């Protein structure tokens, strides 16, 4: 029967794969040896043509081209979506502006220091929304959103320090600790129980999440819902500003700045932070755009004003960089190493007219932390 021949051949091929010789395999099927021998020899010959070396240089160049292509596709998708969103936003904008003009002008400034539960807090949030509506570049929007995310974290921290309970808060941050029901999200103690709504997938350490919950008098946020941060969201803050000032008498408080327990591939706290008291982080990623000293790396805007650039940075270059978050929530790069360049055809200059290579500084890197190989930038992709 024909099917038997197919099965027998497959059995013989498996035996060859396991290291048996053609003769020992054929000894199991002596009546079919004459037919099988040439097939098995042909199969062995067919196997010798595989396993050619992969051209590494081409692979590197092609990879950069592909990532650049993806960035272009992403960019080309954005304007259309923005236009669709523009008109409803304008309508809301005009309404809010009118309401704000009618109300006291001092209201907005007075609301600046309000926290959830305060009467002026809705004014503060509305004003934030208005400011966002006036921002039309993705870079500025991301920076502003980052500031607001930092503000949410600061508010939660302040509420817990004040011991104000039963206040609903929503903030995003990075999971830095998971011990049974006691979590820490960017340093904020979060209590997770059976009644907490969690996403389907596993939440790992260093995962960026959005926490919605209620503050409790024992210094924790009782989580009602925890969601994984959606791609396109700004990088969540890693710690509330001034977190070291939390009341040490509070059992849940933290007396030292938070050092997130980052796995490899996540921002790495640097023990020798060179920028005052800022925590230093290290990322790696792909350069997607370079404009006005604001570069986009893996969808995240970073400021390059103070950066020392080691190597020829281009769109599509793989880079490792170190920096810190300033008080506005912006990521300030102080050193950037080009680990592999994009194509020379895409080499760009920055808007100051100078080459992105810093000839006086390139190669004289010293004193900084050595970048960790293979670190990935754990930021959601910008995909609005």
């Amino acid at each position, binding site marked *: 029967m024909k099917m038997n021949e197919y099965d027998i051949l497959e059995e013989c091929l498996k035996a060859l794969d396991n290291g048996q010789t053609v003769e020992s395999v054929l000894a199991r099927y002596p009546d079919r040896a004459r037919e099988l021998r040439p097939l098995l020899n042909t199969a062995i010959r067919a196997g010798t043509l595989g396993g050619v070396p992969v051209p590494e240089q081409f692979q590197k160049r092609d990879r950069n081209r592909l990532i650049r292509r993806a960035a272009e596709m992403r960019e080309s998708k954005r304007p259309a979506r923005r236009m669709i969103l523009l008109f409803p936003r304008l309508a809301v904008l005009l309404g809010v502006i009118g309401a704000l003009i009618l109300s006291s002008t001092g209201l907005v400034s007075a609301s600046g220091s309000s926290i959830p539960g305060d009467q002026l807090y809705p004014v503060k949030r509305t004003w934030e929304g208005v400011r966002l509506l006036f921002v039309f570049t993705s870079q500025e929007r991301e920076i502003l959103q980052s500031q607001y995310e930092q503000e949410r974290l600061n508010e939660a921290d302040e509420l817990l320090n004040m011991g104000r309970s039963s206040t609903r808060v929503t903030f995003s941050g990075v999971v830095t600790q998971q011990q049974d029901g006691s979590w820490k999200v960017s340093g904020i103690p979060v209590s997770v129980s059976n009644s907490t709504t969690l996403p389907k997938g596993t939440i790992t350490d260093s995962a960026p999440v959005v926490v919605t919950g209620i503050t409790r008098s024992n210094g924790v946020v009782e989580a009602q819902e925890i969601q*994984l941060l959606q*791609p396109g969201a700004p990088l969540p803050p890693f710690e509330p500003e001034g977190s070291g000032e939390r009341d040490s008498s509070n059992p849940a408080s933290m007396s030292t700045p938070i050092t997130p327990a980052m796995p490899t591939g996540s921002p790495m706290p640097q023990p020798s932070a060179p920028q005052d008291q800022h925590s230093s982080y290290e990322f790696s990623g792909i350069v997607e755009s370079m404009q006005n000293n604001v570069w986009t790396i893996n969808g995240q805007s970073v400021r390059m004003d103070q950066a020392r650039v080691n190597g020829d940075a281009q769109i599509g270059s793989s880079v490792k960089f170190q920096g810190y978050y300033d008080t506005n929530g912006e990521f300030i790069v102080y050193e950037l190493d080009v680990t592999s360049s994009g194509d020379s055809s895409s080499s760009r200059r920055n808007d100051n007219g100078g080459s992105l290579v810093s000839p006086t500084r390139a190669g004289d890197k010293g004193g900084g932390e050595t970048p960790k190989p293979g670190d990935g930038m754990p930021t959601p992709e910008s995909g609005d």
Partner: protein
Amino acid sequence: MACYYSQGIAIPMQNFDEQQALDGLRELNSHVIGVIYDRYFPEVYRYVRYRLTDEQVAEDVASDVFVRLLEASQKGRGPQSNLKAWLLSTTSHIVADHLRRSYRRPTETLPENLLDMASIPHDEFERREQTREFRKAYAELTPEQQDVLALRFGQGYSLEETASVLKKKINAVKALQFRALAALQRNIGEVANENE
């Protein structure tokens, strides 16, 4: 340890989660695309090189596969579950298109430099001759037969993986593999006779 990022989760490369990779691909996440490329480019390239001898054409085809992956995923026609099968299946189609175009516009393959051939050791000469015979015999097979041999013996894929790429049942792959080896063996004999 390298990670990539999708849906808010950093994933170590060795714990490659296909569904999250597909989600990241749809979002055009640079990191995810880089990880997918690093993971599958060697397999795609080796498959193409098995089917095509020209190194430069093989590079172009392998590159094209990943561009098509981006484009298809943006148009909602990309892989829904089995990324590797989609990539290899697409590669097979691109190779078939290339071969069809080549048949319509045949180009003469330049003979190897005779001086070089004369200067190489006898064993090496024999090996090259056998490879050339094999290549010629292989090129005479049907595209499906070439596919199954490239996947099973070039890539070392299992029957199941091969069936998934070829979108066939396992028994059909077994039969195809049997017929492909038998045809290849016959062709090799014919090519050898021509040379005598």
